[in-house]
């Protein structure tokens, strides 16, 4: 069995598929198909493009028109709706306007007026979702799948590999992992959770032989103004970034579920987030802004 690694760029992050096969031709074929699937999802759900159905949906906001969604998009909307409930309204795929407002390249805290104006254009509770038809009633409303599509893509890529004869491998989309199967000799894959402020420093190592691992964190996109930390994760109920962990990692039966749990935990903030993770019962690791760790995953001793 040989280890074959295929690195590529997608979903705005570095990706890698590692496959253990006897024959390179089998690995290459599966990796190409998996990569194509990730690219398809990236194109279909990316809010950085202005030519896909999503852009058309956002362009229809406030026009009174409803857009009909296909099965996959409808399932994602249903999933997002479930997360909205789980997170007491903080997980909101319509919060795109707020996220853009707090775009951290500007390095400035937006004014309250700008925050109010953006908040007026968000709110999943305002959206009319009657599967398969979705209507955005307010002009300027946007749907942003960024919170779920990367993890979903990892699981889909893993499934495509399995369908193409791969039994041992792992998909890594910018740190979100989906296991295809444990190593050929039965041993687990070793995933490193990086220290929030020092990505070169592996903080904790987790053994994964199935399922997925997802990490939500602000350690790559953080703004410090007047000594105060602002993450890029915005609470749509008050329009401001959450005061939360620096990163949350969760292990689950799929990367999608792991990602949903870690995102919701981040959005719920320090206290409620920890309580949510404890109640879920999945292995989790949360690191706060001062580097303190909490959770059921063991951190490597220093």
């Amino acid at each position, binding site marked *: 069995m*040989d*280890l074959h690694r295929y690195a590529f760029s997608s979903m705005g992050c570095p990706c890698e598929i590692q496959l253990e096969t006897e024959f390179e031709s089998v690995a290459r074929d599966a990796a190409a198909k998996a990569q194509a699937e990730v690219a398809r999802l990236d194109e279909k759900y990316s809010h950085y493009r202005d030519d896909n159905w999503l852009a058309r949906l956002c362009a229809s906001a406030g026009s009174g028109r409803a857009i009909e969604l296909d099965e996959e998009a409808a399932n994602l909307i249903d999933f997002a709706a479930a997360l909205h409930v789980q997170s007491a309204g903080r997980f909101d795929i319509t919060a795109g306007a707020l996220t853009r407002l707090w775009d951290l390249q500007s390095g400035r805290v937006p004014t309250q007026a700008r925050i109010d104006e953006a908040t007026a254009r968000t709110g999943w509770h305002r959206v009319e979702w009657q599967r398969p038809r979705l209507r955005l009633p307010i002009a300027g409303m946007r749907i942003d799948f960024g919170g779920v599509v990367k993890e979903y893509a990892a699981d889909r890529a893993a499934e495509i590999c399995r369908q193409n004869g791969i039994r041992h491998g792992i998909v890594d989309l910018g740190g979100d992992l989906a296991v295809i199967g444990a190593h050929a000799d039965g*041993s687990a894959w070793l995933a490193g959770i990086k220290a929030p402020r020092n990505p070169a420093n592996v903080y904790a190592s987790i053994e994964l032989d199935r399922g997925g691992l997802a990490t939500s964190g602000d350690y790559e996109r953080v703004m410090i103004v007047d000594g105060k930390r602002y993450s890029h994760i915005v609470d749509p109920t008050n329009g401001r970034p959450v005061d939360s962990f620096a990163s949350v990692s969760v292990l689950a039966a799929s990367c999608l579920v792991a990602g949903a749990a870690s995102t919701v935990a981040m959005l719920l903030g320090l206290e409620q987030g920890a309580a949510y993770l404890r109640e879920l019962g999945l292995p989790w690791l949360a690191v706060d802004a001062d580097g303190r760790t909490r959770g059921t995953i063991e951190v490597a001793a220093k």
Partner: protein
Amino acid sequence: MRPDLLLRLTCALACGAALAACATKPVQPWERAHLARWDMRWDPDSAQTAMKQHAYFSKEGSSGTIGAAGGGCGCN
């Protein structure tokens, strides 16, 4: 003669075991990628080995390998 042979073989096995036990630090699970390669199996092409061993068995006085022996044949 046979007890002597068995004694010699057992000593050889014991020495081998001692040697292997003195081997350097254990190989971790994530270091076993090379050992799991097809060409590192004891018998990568078992179909071919079966045919090959059958041919040797039928023209040599004593051949074979370790493992459950199959039925014989009237090869001559």
